[in-house]
């Protein structure tokens, strides 16, 4: 496909959740520019604000401070050219695999035949052909993740946001789906942002690896990883080095937070407890 990737910018973006029992800051002063066609991996401790960052990029949330821009425009509401795979996948239980895969296109009012063809192609790309008529409850966790991936792929988006899309598949399938993601990204040239807890996955798929601190998330490290997509990258010595670098950046950001600012998450929990 010849669609160019979108440019995604966070400019001093911050987010505070106001609707809970108390104000909760999830993101502080994030400034990052993701260039068109770039693949960025986002890694950080659990609960730090990664999903929140993706929801900001998708337009599901608006920043409390600063700006989030796609192609230079503030994203006020979800764009139809952005595909988000939410952490809970967002599959509709009353729709079959094929109906779920075609949903994004149906919403965009793509002609039916064309939409179905796109959806079927996407399903076969993730290895779900033959399951078109099944319902999500009949799929395994990994198959559901592949379905969510197929739905995003069918949309041919210029910005693909993925929240731990491969966390429930076995190691081998995971590697093969990582290759699917990599091939699709190279072939289509979309911009992508991938949240993951796997250091290897981040290093395998991200041209840049953003490391977040514990909540409220701040950008702790922005590690260049230029060899993504090269043959044999996963087995090279450099790959292992990069993994170590990300690992120590993660440990450092976690350690820093527990050293400099230990009571924060704990204090909030205590307050709720009382």
């Amino acid at each position: 496909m010849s669609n160019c990737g979108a440019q995604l910018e966070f400019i001093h973006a911050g987010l505070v959740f106001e609707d809970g029992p108390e104000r909760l800051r999830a993101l502080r002063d994030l400034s990052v520019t993701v260039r068109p066609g770039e693949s960025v991996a986002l890694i950080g401790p659990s609960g730090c604000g990664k999903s929140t960052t993706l929801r900001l990029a998708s337009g599901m949330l608006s920043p409390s401070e600063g700006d989030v821009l796609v192609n230079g425009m503030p994203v006020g509401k979800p764009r139809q050219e952005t595909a988000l795979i939410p952490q809970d996948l967002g599959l509709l239980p009353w729709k079959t695999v094929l109906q779920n895969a075609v949903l994004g296109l149906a919403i965009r009012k793509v002609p039916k035949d064309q939409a179905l063809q796109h959806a079927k192609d996407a399903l076969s790309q993730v290895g779900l052909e033959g399951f078109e008529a099944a319902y999500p409850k009949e799929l395994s966790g990994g198959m559901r993740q592949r379905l969510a991936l197929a739905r995003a792929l069918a949309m041919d988006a210029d910005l693909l946001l993925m929240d731990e899309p491969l966390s429930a598949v076995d190691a081998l399938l995971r590697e093969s789906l990582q290759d699917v993601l990599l091939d699709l990204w190279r072939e289509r040239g979309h911009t992508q942002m991938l949240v993951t807890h796997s250091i290897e996955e981040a290093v395998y798929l991200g041209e840049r690896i953003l490391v977040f601190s514990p909540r409220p998330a701040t950008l702790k490290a922005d590690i260049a990883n230029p060899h993504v997509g090269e043959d044999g990258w996963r087995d090279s010595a450099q790959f292992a080095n990069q993994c170590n670098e990300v690992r120590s950046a993660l440990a450092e950001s976690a350690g820093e937070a527990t050293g400099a600012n230990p009571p924060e998450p704990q204090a909030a929990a205590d307050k709720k407890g009382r």
Partner: protein
Amino acid sequence: MLSKVGGYVFAVAFIVAGWWITALAVNSPALPTPAQTVEVLGSNMDVLIPFFWTSAYRVVASLLIGTLLAVPIAQLCTRSRVLDRLFAPVLYLLYPIPKVVLLPILLVLFGLADAPKIVLISLTVFFQVLVAVRDAVKAVPESALISVRALGGSAWDEYRHVYVPATLPAVFTSLRIGVGTAIAVLFIAEAMAGSTGLGYFIMQSWSMVNYPRMFAGIIALALLGLVLYAIFDLLERRLTRWR
């Protein structure tokens, strides 16, 4: 499939046998045996068939009217917090009242023909569907709505892809359960007023002390209920395959 058919054959055989034994034991003209009933049904077909259709028309029209009013109102109520706060207590107070007590008023207002019966059954159905759909809308998973919104869907897309498919099974469940009540209300309405329908046929036979004829009417009314129940059951099952 075969075992299912076998199950129904067994059930019918069981019921007919039970009925036969009871009829022989009771030995009253008010409870004819199945063999006598077949005979009676045959000889009353000319009156029964038009009355069957009259009654069927009244129930089906009421089910449609009740449902078509209840679904959008239930959706509307649950979409707006203010409306729901306003209507929830009203609903809470009105729902348990047996609507059939309104029959005398409706007879005064609408006369003796179809109108009061349809209004009465529609009211009964309306509340049942309203309550069921309201609960179903409240149970719609937030993540489904989020997913449609994340794909850039409009309010109409949310309605089409989430609210309708998520609540339609509840509509048919409430209709399936409501058929029994609807037929009961129909019987009372027809028995009390007018000179058409199976309810009238049954009460007329009773006053004529023609028990076999009365029983034929009962069988016809039971059949009407059974057919409607089976239809809604089928629709419900087809729509809830995803569960």
